[in-house]
């Protein structure tokens, strides 16, 4: 247990020591999205009855920031350690694959959570957002951080250079988050795009998280939680297999 806690502590310190870049910057980015999109669309769009577009945007932006930062945390930590070579200190230790996975994933959840909470706190100034089902919001925040943290570990292990990781982030993570219904309800899309959206696991995270605030969602929160939990379990299994087998880590 102390080994796991030390790696977790190290991972938390790693992003905390550069918090301007890892926490403040993504909060500012989300704030800019809110200001621009709400200014451009607030008078034209009402997604849910009685919910302003600005209010609708806020949970989605918080979840999007949470997801992207959870991914960034684990993936960048692992690839940096791999490329600079200091991952050897972890690999030489008696840490088990489960402990390594747990520490990297939990640190990613914490970073995602802190950024998501920061986005909420900063943007709530611009609209009243109710919190009707806080437990659902918390469950989806944890599942989202865990899912993207786990995905980040896989990407960090797989990528041999920063370029490959950036490609994974720019061509997979960012499109999936943008197309997860952050800026719109998928029910407003043409049928084919509705089907496509339902194949995107990130959609269930955004939709379920938003349910926690407004009590309204495109899919029932239990169904969303089931889909996302399945993804988290699958990614955990992949992670443990990669770490136990030493894929690209122990040659």
């Amino acid at each position, binding site marked *: *247990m*102390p*080994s796991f*806690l*030390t*790696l977790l*502590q*190290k991972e938390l*310190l*790693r992003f905390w*020591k*550069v918090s301007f870049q890892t926490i403040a910057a993504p909060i500012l980015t989300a704030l800019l999205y809110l200001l621009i999109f709400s200014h451009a669309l607030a008078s034209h769009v009402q997604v849910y009855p009685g919910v302003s577009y600005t209010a609708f945007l806020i949970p989605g932006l918080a979840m999007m920031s949470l997801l992207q930062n959870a991914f960034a945390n684990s993936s960048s930590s692992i690839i940096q*350690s791999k490329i*600079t*070579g*200091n991952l*050897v*200190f*972890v*690999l*030489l*230790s*008696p*840490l*088990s694959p489960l402990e390594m996975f747990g520490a990297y994933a939990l640190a990613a959840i914490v970073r995602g959570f802190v950024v998501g909470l920061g986005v909420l706190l900063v943007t709530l100034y611009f609209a009243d957002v109710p919190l009707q089902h806080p437990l659902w919001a918390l469950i989806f925040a944890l599942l989202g951080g865990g899912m993207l943290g786990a995905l980040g570990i896989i990407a960090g292990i797989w990528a041999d250079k920063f370029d490959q990781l950036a490609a994974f982030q720019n061509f997979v993570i960012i499109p999936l988050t943008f197309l997860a219904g952050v800026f719109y309800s998928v029910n407003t899309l043409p049928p084919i795009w509705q089907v496509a959206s339902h194949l995107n696991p990130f959609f269930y995270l955004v939709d379920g998280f938003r349910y926690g605030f407004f009590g309204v969602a495109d899919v029932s929160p239990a169904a969303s939680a089931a889909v996302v939990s399945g993804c988290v379990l699958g990614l955990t299994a992949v992670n443990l297999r990669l770490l136990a087998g*030493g894929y690209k880590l*122990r*040659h």
Partner: protein
Amino acid sequence: MAYAIEVRQASKRYGAVQALDRVDLNIAQGEFFGLLGPNGAGKTTLISLLAGLARADSGSLKVMGHDVTCDYRRARRALGVVPQELVFDPFFSVRETLRLQSGYFGLRHNDAWVDEIIQRLDLEDKADSNMRSLSGGMKRRVLVGQALVHRPPVIILDEPTAGVDVELRQGLWKFIRELNVAGHTIVLTTHYLEEAEALCARIAMLKQGRIVALDTTRNLLQHVSGARLRLRLEPDELPPPLERYSVGTKDGSRILQLPDCASVEEVLARLRESHIQVQEMEVMQADLEDVFVQMMRRH
């Protein structure tokens, strides 16, 4: 009593390169052991297999009786490795680095030992400096500290003195010697053969993934065939029958490589016959470098 290190038929291939080829090696507890060989001989591969940084294709490796694959937790707790490459985490200070490494091995409240390591490695002035601000030699010492932080019974140092100045090197060896006297098993790879000769009681020489020599340092030095003779002559010329022994000159003296010590008598007789006076003569001791060169040529 279990061996500190036990390697049985360990092989490892990287693509077309056979990095290790059915290596067998036992190192007893408390030994100061040298692992020598040219670049690419397999030294670092062997260390990586022992440390769990790489997996053997076949064979088995144990540290203090614990298999490095099946019982990796105990094997890694028993082993401290100073890696060859100068790696560090730029986010942390020297003290934080050592504390974290200690924590990875499940040790908390290890500050007294961490402080002692900092003091013994002469890092006190830099203890709270970020790793980035340290010189290469300082970083190397932190790497040594990281390997020692969990007090492992077996310590492997892969080229630990590369880039470390003479004074620091001597301090480092004093510390490592003391650890050895205290019962730690030390395995050393180095390109400074005089260091290996002075420190290691037993040596293995590797070439192309195979052990080509494995003996006590004393026996290796004794077995090196031939004697080397330094002669200052008047007049400075060699009789033709002795030309075949000449391997060069040094500071106005001639250096002869003889097949054995008995040949010294033949050399002196030939010189007397030719009326050449010996002004200075020295029979030079073989050193580990001679053994190394001979072994590498032979295999």
